[in-house]
């Protein structure tokens, strides 16, 4: 797959390349070059199948990674395109015109990560959540545990003890 990368590199400015398996590689693509690269891959390189489109929140580094996973069935290989976009005011150009099914992914990303895809069909409509006003819940800083503790009651009667602390209490309470 490195061969493909070298070819593409002559056409597009590409970032980091990682070969995960013989048939699966990931490559980082500057945001503005994604679209021409996708079209090239789809129409000329055989990557006709959009396997998935999803995001990874690198909260600490302050960016979202969008992963566009493409599949070339004839050559039996997959290429994941990584696009890093800033977390603040995250916006990305949609690809629903290249793969109509991408609209669903984009709508989900809008809702779950708060990444906007202007012009994507129904992108601002609720997809999974209903009446959700809080932080997009798939962001790393959304605390699921806190959410569940604020919204659900624990059944009373549960209590646990830490074995080491319990042994200290019972066997050597006075010692350091």
């Amino acid at each position, binding site marked *: 797959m490195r061969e493909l990368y070298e070819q593409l590199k002559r056409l597009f400015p590409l970032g980091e390349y990682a070969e995960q398996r013989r048939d699966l590689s990931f490559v980082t693509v500057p945001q503005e070059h994604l679209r021409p690269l996708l079209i090239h891959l789809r129409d000329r390189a055989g990557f006709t199948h959009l396997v998935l489109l999803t995001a990874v929140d690198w909260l600490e580094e302050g960016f979202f990674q969008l992963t566009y996973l493409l599949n070339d069935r004839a050559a039996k290989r997959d290429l994941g395109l990584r696009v890093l976009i800033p977390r603040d005011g995250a916006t990305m150009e949609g690809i629903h015109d290249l793969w109509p099914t991408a609209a669903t992914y984009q709508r989900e990303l809008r809702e779950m990560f708060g990444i906007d895809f202007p012009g994507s069909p129904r992108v601002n409509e609720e997809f999974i959540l209903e009446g959700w006003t809080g932080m997009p819940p798939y962001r790393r800083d959304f605390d699921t545990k806190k959410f569940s503790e604020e919204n659900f009651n624990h059944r009373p009667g549960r209590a646990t*003890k830490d*074995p080491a602390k*319990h042994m*200290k209490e019972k066997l050597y309470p006075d010692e350091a």
Partner: protein
Amino acid sequence: MKIRDLLSPFTVWKNLFRDPVTIDDPVRQRPGAPRYRGFHKNDVKKCIGCGTCETICQNGAIDMVPVDGISAKDGDSGLRPRIDYGRCCWCALCVDVCMTKSLTMSNDYQWIDRDPDAFRFTPGVDRKKWDDAALGYQRPDDHRLTPEERVHMKELGPDARIGSFIEIVKGYSVEEARKEADRCVACGLCTATCPAHMAIPDYIAAIRDGDYERGLRLLYDTNPLPEVCGRVCTHKCESVCAVRHEGDPVAIRWLKRHIADQVPLDQYRAIVGATEPATGKKVAVVGAGPAGLSAAYYLARMGHAVEIFEALPAAGGMMRYGIPEYRLPYDQLDKDIAFVMGLGVKLTLNTRVGKDIALDDLRKRFDALFISTGLHLGRSTKVPGADHPKVFQSIDLLRRVTLGEEIFCPGEAIVIGGGNVAMDIARTLARLQMRKYGKVGVTLLCLETEDVMPADREEIIESREEGVILRPGYGPTHIETDGDRVTGARFVRCLSVFDENGRFAPRFDTADEIAISGAMVVESIGQGMDLSYLPDDLKNQIVFERGRPKVDRHFRTSVPWLYAGGDIVQGPDVIHGIANGHAAAVGIDRYLREGGTT
């Protein structure tokens, strides 16, 4: 449209004459499969309450709760898992990870109750109808979620080590240590058993994280001699390690050593931190063994001025003059001691209290005293011939070897005793013989049979590898002498060592007698203390219990300003001495801060 497409659906009617496939009475006719994951069972006698089941449960369905009739003891927290079936998802990870294999599942899956709280119970404690179910999921033998085999420790082979006193155990590499640290399940049962209550799971976690600074800080919280303990500790912790039930215990001792080995001495101070501001109080420590050093370390950290008085030419006590170099190299001992001294502790060597300086003088010059003079008098078997000059005490010989003296070392030697000290002298003699004669001629005999010998298992194995002949289960009757020479000794078969009350009262079969030849006999059957340095009036104020000074939980004797610890209080053991020294330091600090009167 084919005619077949119209007729073919009528084949459905053939089922009119078929028996129903439904099970009439699933409650009774439909037991779960043999590996069915149904309600939990727990063998509470086997369970050690380590809480690993609780840790792995992704539903938070398990609580560790105290149970009537099961109390906390070494290797058992006394807690047992209680399962909330409102949360359990029957994944059986708790069964897979269970350290003792006590937790299993029955194939019972039917239970109706109107009380929702009934579905929260402690398996094995709250009786349930499936407790005796023969079938149900158990962890298959080969299915392991935690590695059961200890990472191999590289050691010198017998041939390489017998000719020298080079350290046998090589220590783990960073990678090996991480792998071994990975085996810990962090239950913390070991902490209660460790006399110093070291934060074992935490410093093992520090190894996993590669954070040796955190690891060293954790070590020094409770133990100022990590290089020593990392080599020669009796590691009671490993005997209660949860992993030992279905695998090798975690090599806690080697991991401790690994942390200390990884950090150079010159970084210790920056990592462990400086002492507190000086209090102006002065404490004298008599004896620079583990207890004395430990007390001195913690007292110095608390800001007190500490001076240690030591009779021998170097600090370390039994760690230096008892334990052979191949088990504890002097440079490693020196590293630990150097850091204690670096805190400003004053060390006065070659000064025997009671002889070179009177205890009363110390009393006048210092606000409090800590005595930890150890057990340096050998005990004799007192059999005929035991008073012969070629009959030696093991600790005398070991001390002289450390001091660099030439000791009497014939080609054939007899060692009497089955503890670690006996092993030390046997293996030391073996090395000296190897140098002198090119072969080993040591026979070691002891009352105990091999399975109950007090020595560590690895000592027994390694001494055999080095050519020492072990004859466990024999007691001496007399030592044969010829003028100024010893020619051998006679032994009879020992039938039992203790009586039914557990008191030392060996019984012998005199018909089974053996003769062992040897030009020297070394007795190594225990040590006694020498408290002659205590003035008589003081001695009278001190309450003794079974020959040892009686102390409170801060190791204060009946005399308010006099604290005692180490072997003279607790018997021979490094880690106990360290723990005593620490506890005494806390007590002395409190005593001094309260004005030093009560």
